């Protein structure tokens, strides 16, 4: 489908302002198919606003956002964007607390999601298989019958990543996946995200520099709604502009 040179995500000249404050200021960013991209930047740099624009939650004042060559994200509703193959993991784990791990994954299954269809829906063997596969990837096979609310913080984060995977997305947006995690959980998450890139494009927003260093091949630094640097971790850390706004002052 995608030929070499085609990007999976094109954001060009995006500007979003809230009461005069420019959350995004002519932001331009491209994501390659299958890449694992980390986005860093100080608070207020526009990371979350960018995610909001991509998922249809916020509409920009100007600029364009295309998913692949054919889908204009600015013309699509939130459910349409989700259906088209962009999955988002929020900063705070938001799983369904009163449903079991299995049920959480079941609801996240890709496919038609109308009222009548879901009323009559049954798990097909293939769907059961893909749920089992995802359970294995996120390592929650033994917790499948537990209610969401009894999971640990890390398990909730993985379950949510699992729910994203059920949607078979082409692009995964992951917001601060390791905030509040223990070192072991962080390590597990790094391995998980790395195993996902390749089949999926993964965009991770994260503050934890150690974590970013351990997973990222390419890092984009945002500041005041603009990209100020892009490259591998060493390049970025040695960039004088980045040192000025972010690392040292």
């Amino acid at each position, binding site marked *: 489908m995608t030929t070499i040179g085609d990007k999976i995500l094109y954001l060009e000249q995006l500007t979003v302002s809230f009461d005069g404050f420019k959350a995004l200021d002519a932001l331009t960013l491209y994501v390659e198919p299958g890449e694992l991209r980390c986005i860093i930047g100080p608070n207020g740099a526009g990371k979350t606003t960018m995610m909001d624009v991509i998922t249809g939650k916020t509409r920009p004042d100007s600029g364009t956002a295309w998913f692949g060559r054919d889908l204009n994200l600015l013309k699509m509703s939130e459910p349409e964007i989700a259906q088209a193959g962009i999955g988002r993991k929020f900063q705070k784990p938001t799983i369904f607390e009163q*449903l079991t791990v*299995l*049920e959480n994954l079941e*609801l*996240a299954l890709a496919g038609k*999601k109308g009222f009548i269809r*879901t*009323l009559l*829906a049954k798990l097909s063997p293939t769907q059961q298989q893909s749920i089992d596969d995802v359970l294995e990837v996120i390592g929650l096979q033994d917790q499948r019958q537990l209610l969401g609310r009894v999971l640990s913080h890390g398990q909730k984060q993985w379950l949510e990543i699992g729910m994203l995977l059920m949607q078979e997305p082409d692009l995964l947006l992951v917001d601060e996946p390791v905030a509040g995690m223990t070192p072991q959980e962080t390590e597990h998450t790094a391995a998980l995200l790395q195993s996902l890139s390749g089949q999926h494009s993964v965009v991770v927003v994260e503050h934890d520099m150690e974590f970013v260093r351990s997973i990222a091949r390419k890092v984009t630094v945002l500041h005041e709604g603009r990209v100020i640097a892009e490259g591998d971790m060493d390049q970025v850390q040695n960039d004088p502009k980045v040192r000025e706004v972010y690392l040292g002052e």
Partner: protein
Amino acid sequence: MELRRNAFVLANDRRSTGFIATLLLVAVIVPILNRAVPSTSALHLSTYALTLIGKYMCYAMLAIAVDLIWGYCGILSLGHAAFFSLGGYAMGMYLMRQIGPRGVYGDPILPDFMVFLNWKELPWFWYGFNHFFIAMLMMVVVPAVLAGVFGWFAFRSRVTGVYFSIITQALSYALMLAFFRNDMGFGGNNGFTDFKEILGFDLHSDSTRVGLLIATSIALAASFMSCRWIVNSRAGRVMRAIRDAESRTRFLGYSVESFKLGVFVFSAVIAAVAGALYVPQVGIINPSEFAPINSIEVVIWVAVGGRGTLYGAATGAVLVNYAKTYFTGALPEVWLYALGALFVLVTVFLPRGVVGLLPSRRKLVKE
């Protein structure tokens, strides 16, 4: 069905079976106690009591309808009495047409109140209501269309929570005011009463009352089972997801609005059928049935019984209404205080309602 093998669901299954069994028992035993046991026997059940039980079952249906949307989908409707009353009015129109020339004024076509208002002919919207089938159709279609249009606007504009509750109150109140007007053609503040027969059976005979009770039991069982089927389907899990995290559900690609609209309309239809069964048993329908307080009472029944269980809602409806019958007879001035106190106590001390007191082997980890 691996998805359903958990202890909480199993406990719910057991109790639901128990509920259906109880209902079946009532539908068999009550008519026997009324018809077959001689009135001299201590076991005899009066027709008054039998009708009362039928009335409670209509309330139980209404409570189940509210629990379906509130307990499972988080939509707090404070206007369900409106759908109940609309169903009741549709049935009332049929029953009025059945009176025929036996009315006080003896007009073969026009109900008494129209003769009294000096109307010369039947308004167009009364046509067809002399046929039971058409009346039955209207008692479902009218509330469904109203719920559909109302819900479409409300849910599409993402009106949620307390704002939704308030506009449902307004809806019910507006309908009450409209039905109070004589020129609406629904009997004004007197509503409809003095019914004679239904489907050719005398409404005052004991055997018709028994028939109505059995019909109500069947309708209650059918509503209960269809609601259970919905909440146990994947759509039911989506509803609970909407209740707990609406925007998250939207991000999963579900059109939250269409789910809300679907269950809201279905719930309105159950409420309307309950109202339609209620009217021939109590013998009257008037605009006070639309009163906002009635809708609020339903929510109290559900909260008292236990929200999000269906059988709990039905239990709450029966318990609270039994208490109401008792209090309004013995200590009428105390009733509203007792109801208020009950609601507060249950909310504070029994968040899972009366059925939450039932012994359960509730555990989070399943075998």
